[in-house]
């Protein structure tokens, strides 16, 4: 406890009921499509059947004649503005390479044309009636083919901007170094190099993307949409449709998960256009198959890591090189790539020489986007595999080797400054780091010394344990912004208005807790309204692990300003020194007595020097304190079949003060199980012509309740002095753990390294065969 006030937290650090919990658990009509849809037109998209083609012509007259069809949309009758679908801060670091409808299709599942009709049947009939003539172009279906001389150029349009080198299909290029890596390797006793590859994977929120567009009585466009970024949706839709921001209102009701997939403007422009053109409400909902193919995916990457260390285990140099497949459009191409280096390399700041180079390339495959972990996940696979290899070569325990080289409180890394969100970063000293505790607790829980290297055998199954560590960030420093408004009501309750976006994470609840803590009231007295661009102040939205830290700080500041206003009103009632006033238990307490908040508000509203007690505050963070995570897994590998079972997974996190410990644990648990799926079973497969072969939850396997059995998550005692109530982030970091941790555990069990995800039984068995370990 470095912060005396912590002991006195009344609301923070407690497991309050979620403020939206009752509505959700009773199945209230809270989601986009739960309202009356009887008047809505149904929007359906014609998706490209070809990986790469020019649209020669689209004959729409037959489709327009289908009874019930209200509108057919193609490149010929929609705004041509180039923009990015990536919901990022303005100006976005992603290229402007997308149009509502283009004259070219760039992957199987790209937009060709859309229809809006009275019924689903009519819409489908109209799609069938569209006659499209394509001129098929050669396609690029592998990252290695993208940069080859003579490769087809995927973005040959003249009006695209922000592409690093369109003629070579390179979306983005990053090249930074600190120190001198060559010198670092020269002074190393040991150099290891490893290359790891990750697959195409999809977020699979249980609610697919859905948008309901309508016009209000004044003709303004109301978008009720399943999004993580309502304010970015408002800006990008206005840009794409060529209408003022003031004409658009975006409302995010409850949404069924996002994980990054909904940090993207995928439906809102089309649904909005239908509403504007027809005056009718329009519902555009992706089917599960469409969600797989035509929403967003995790960027597949090939990451090479070269480590140099002295024989006593001190890292001298890290060289990381990444090639990222951004698919047909460059959404998040640069920033995901940059994060692969910027969120990993500072972890081992003992290496004074470090380099990160990388390129993101276009292919004619589904589009990469934001996905929890955001490049760090891919980077940690290679980095933590290389660390494991180096520890073994040095004869060091993997935990000890990491301890020796990991960043500590009070230290920085030049990488923080060199590499940020697709541009230069911000210098930073880590102020809270309890990685030591995380490692100690995790090792104990998994039984590290009992299992490590023992290779306990039961029939053909062999057990092993592995570990990895990681950091992430808390928002994007000097870019992200969150704002909060708090106003007081005469019964002593407060409205908390936040642009922050609760995707199910519980941010409405924890932001309410922060306000309640400052204002000395129970959480029930905080009425949380979030994510309505007409009502709530600006917030970038839910991404980059920013909400608790950035939006939370805005809430804390707004609450503190409100507190001062309350004191100003209460002081004359209580007498004495204003410095002695405190808010506690719904009262202003001073030396001479107490007065209720209701009384204070009544006075301000109705009696003396009347004014609305309320404040708006913003936060633009100057740093991004990393949370830390130690992961341990015990696995069993079947040497006859290659099956891998995760028998026990332990994750111990330093996320600063957990505002709501159960929700924080839930973030880690969900991320880890998602990561286990990513490590073992989840993989989008493609035909030789670039078509997704398994776009269903039947064929693409995400973990169910029987697949992830023993999962232990723990939070260590930590306090981040720059964070609201001592908090930093926890939303993304967990997903980075399973791949390297399971890979290292497999190695401990059977002595083979898996360098390509997912670790399917067939891949594991092939690796065992190559190593001569597999039982024939």
């Amino acid at each position, binding site marked *: 406890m470095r912060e005396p006030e912590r002991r006195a937290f009344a609301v923070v650090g407690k497991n309050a009921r979620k403020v939206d919990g009752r509505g959700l658990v009773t199945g209230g009509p809270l989601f986009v499509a739960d309202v009356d849809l009887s008047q809505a037109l149904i929007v359906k998209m014609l998706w490209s059947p070809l990986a790469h083609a020019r649209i020669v012509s689209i004959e729409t007259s037959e489709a327009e004649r289908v009874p019930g069809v209200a509108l057919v949309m193609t490149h010929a009758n929609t705004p041509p503005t180039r923009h990015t679908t990536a919901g990022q801060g303005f100006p976005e670091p992603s290229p402007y390479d997308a149009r509502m409808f283009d004259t070219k299709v760039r992957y199987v599942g790209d937009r060709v044309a859309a229809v809006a009709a009275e019924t689903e049947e009519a819409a489908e009939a109209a799609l069938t009636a569209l006659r499209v003539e394509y001129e098929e172009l050669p396609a690029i279906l592998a990252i290695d083919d993208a940069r080859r001389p003579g490769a087809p150029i995927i973005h040959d349009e003249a009006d695209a901007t922000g592409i690093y080198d369109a003629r070579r299909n390179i979306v983005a290029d990053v090249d930074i170094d600190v120190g001198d890596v060559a010198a670092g390797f020269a002074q190393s006793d040991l150099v290891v190099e490893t290359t790891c590859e990750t697959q195409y994977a999809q977020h699979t929120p249980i609610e697919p993307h859905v948008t309901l567009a309508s016009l209000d009585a004044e003709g303004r466009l109301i978008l009720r949409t399943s999004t993580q970024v309502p304010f970015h949706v408002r800006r990008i839709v206005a840009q794409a449709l060529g209408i003022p921001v003031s004409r658009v209102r975006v409302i995010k009701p409850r949404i069924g998960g996002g994980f990054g997939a909904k940090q993207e403007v995928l439906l809102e422009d089309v649904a909005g256009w239908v509403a504007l053109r027809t005056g009718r409400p329009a519902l555009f909902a992706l089917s599960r198959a469409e969600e797989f193919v035509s929403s967003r995916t995790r960027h597949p990457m090939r990451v090479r890591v070269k480590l140099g260390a002295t024989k006593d285990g001190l890292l001298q140099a890290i060289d990381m090189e990444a090639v990222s497949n951004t698919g047909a459009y460059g959404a998040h191409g640069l920033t995901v790539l940059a994060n692969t280096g910027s969120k990993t390399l500072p972890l081992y700041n003992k290496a004074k020489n470090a380099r990160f180079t990388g390129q993101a390339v276009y292919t004619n495959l589904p589009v990469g986007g934001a996905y929890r972990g955001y490049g760090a996940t891919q980077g940690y696979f290679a980095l933590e595999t290389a660390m494991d290899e180096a520890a073994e070569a040095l004869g060091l325990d993997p935990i000890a080797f990491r301890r020796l080289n990991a960043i500590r409180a009070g230290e920085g890394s030049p990488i923080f400054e060199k590499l940020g969100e697709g541009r230069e970063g911000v210098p930073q000293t880590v102020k809270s780091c309890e990685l030591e505790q995380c490692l100690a607790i995790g090792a104990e829980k998994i039984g590290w010394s009992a299992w490590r290297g023992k290779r306990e055998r039961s029939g053909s199954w062999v057990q092993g344990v592995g570990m990895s560590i990681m950091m992430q960030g808390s928002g994007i420093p000097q870019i992200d912004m969150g704002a909060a408004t708090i106003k007081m009501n005469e019964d002593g309750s407060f409205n908390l208005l936040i642009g922050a976006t609760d995707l199910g994470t519980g941010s409405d609840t924890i932001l309410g807790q922060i306000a309640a803590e400052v204002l000395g009231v129970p959480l029930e007295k905080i009425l949380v309204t979030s994510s309505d661009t007409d009502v709530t102040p600006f917030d970038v939205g839910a991404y980059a692990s920013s909400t608790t830290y950035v939006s939370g700080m805005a809430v804390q500041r707004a609450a503190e300003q409100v507190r001062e206003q309350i004191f100003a009103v209460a002081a004359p009632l209580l007498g004495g020194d204003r410095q002695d006033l405190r808010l506690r238990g719904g009262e202003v307490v001073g030396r001479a007595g107490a007065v209720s908040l209701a009384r204070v508000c009544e006075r301000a509203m109705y009696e003396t020097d009347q004014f609305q007690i309320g404040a708006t505050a913003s936060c633009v963070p100057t740093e991004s304190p990393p949370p830390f995570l130690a992961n341990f897994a015990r696995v069993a590998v079947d040497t006859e079949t290659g099956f891998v079972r995760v028998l026990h997974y332990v994750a111990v996190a330093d996320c600063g003060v957990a505002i709501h410990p159960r929700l924080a644990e839930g973030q880690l648990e969900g991320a880890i199980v998602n990561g286990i799926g990513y490590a073992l079973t989840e993989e989008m497969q493609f035909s030789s012509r670039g078509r997704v072969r398994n776009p269903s939850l*039947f064929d693409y396997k995400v973990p169910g309740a029987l697949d992830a059995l023993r999962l232990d998550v723990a939070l260590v005692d930590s306090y981040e002095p720059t964070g609201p109530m001592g908090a930093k982030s926890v939303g993304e970091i967990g997903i980075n753990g399973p791949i390297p941790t399971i890979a290292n555990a497999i190695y401990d069990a059977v002595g083979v390294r898996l360098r390509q995800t997912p670790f399917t039984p067939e891949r594991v*068995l092939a690796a065992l065969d190559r190593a001569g370990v597999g039982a024939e």
Partner: protein
Amino acid sequence: MSLRQVQRIARPTTVEEAWAIRRAAPDASRFLAGGVDLVLYAPPSVTTLIDLSRLGLDGIREEGDDLVLGAMATLSQALESPLVAGSAGGFLRDVLRRVASPPQRNLATIGGAAVRGHPWSDVVTALLVLDAQLETYDGREARLSLAAAGAGEGPSPLVRAIRIPGAWRGSRAAFEKFSRAAVDVAMLNCACSALVERGTCREARVAVGGTPALARRLLDVERSLAGTKLTAVETRAAAEEAARGIEARDDLRASAAYRRRLARVGVERCLESIAGRGEETG
């Protein structure tokens, strides 16, 4: 995903009536049992569904030594039935626990699972090694072995029940399923059963499914096992023969070569379990 092509639900109360409707419209009608497959895969030509739920076909009962599973019994009913649990050492119950998810098992019927014959079907693989017979009606009542079902012209007959003969209810049987996740269809599945007398295997059944084709029995392997003592050497040899004997192909879930490996391991594990040497795995 509604079935817009469907215009009529027929609700016959006798098997004869159901069959008459079916026969009158071979392309335009289908029997509606659990309905799961129809909702997902009904062809566009189907305009009439014949609901079989009023035919009294959902009982599970014993007839002599035989176990008779009414075709309309859901997988859950079968799974929970003491008669099923008491057959072949609970083999069929243990198989059913690994089929689909509980809400799907509450809908899918044993008859549908047996005759729809998804290539990955665990139920068919399991029933094959119990020598299951279909009790059918196509104008007359008949019994045919599951292994022989599916051939013939015109609509396949209405299945009234699945009959497991007494001899095989008393067999030792084992099942292996290899799937990516707990609720998933098999990359490959296999089942074996044996009638063992004084340590000698009198007769054996071996079936492998999800190859990715529908399960079939491996008669050569069955013949080689007959008369053996099911020693480790013999089960290994049988497993290797099984791996050679399947028609393995590549698909989304696995390659042909990997499927052969799984068939070898799976059949050996089943036979070792039957021989009483099964290991607790993982």
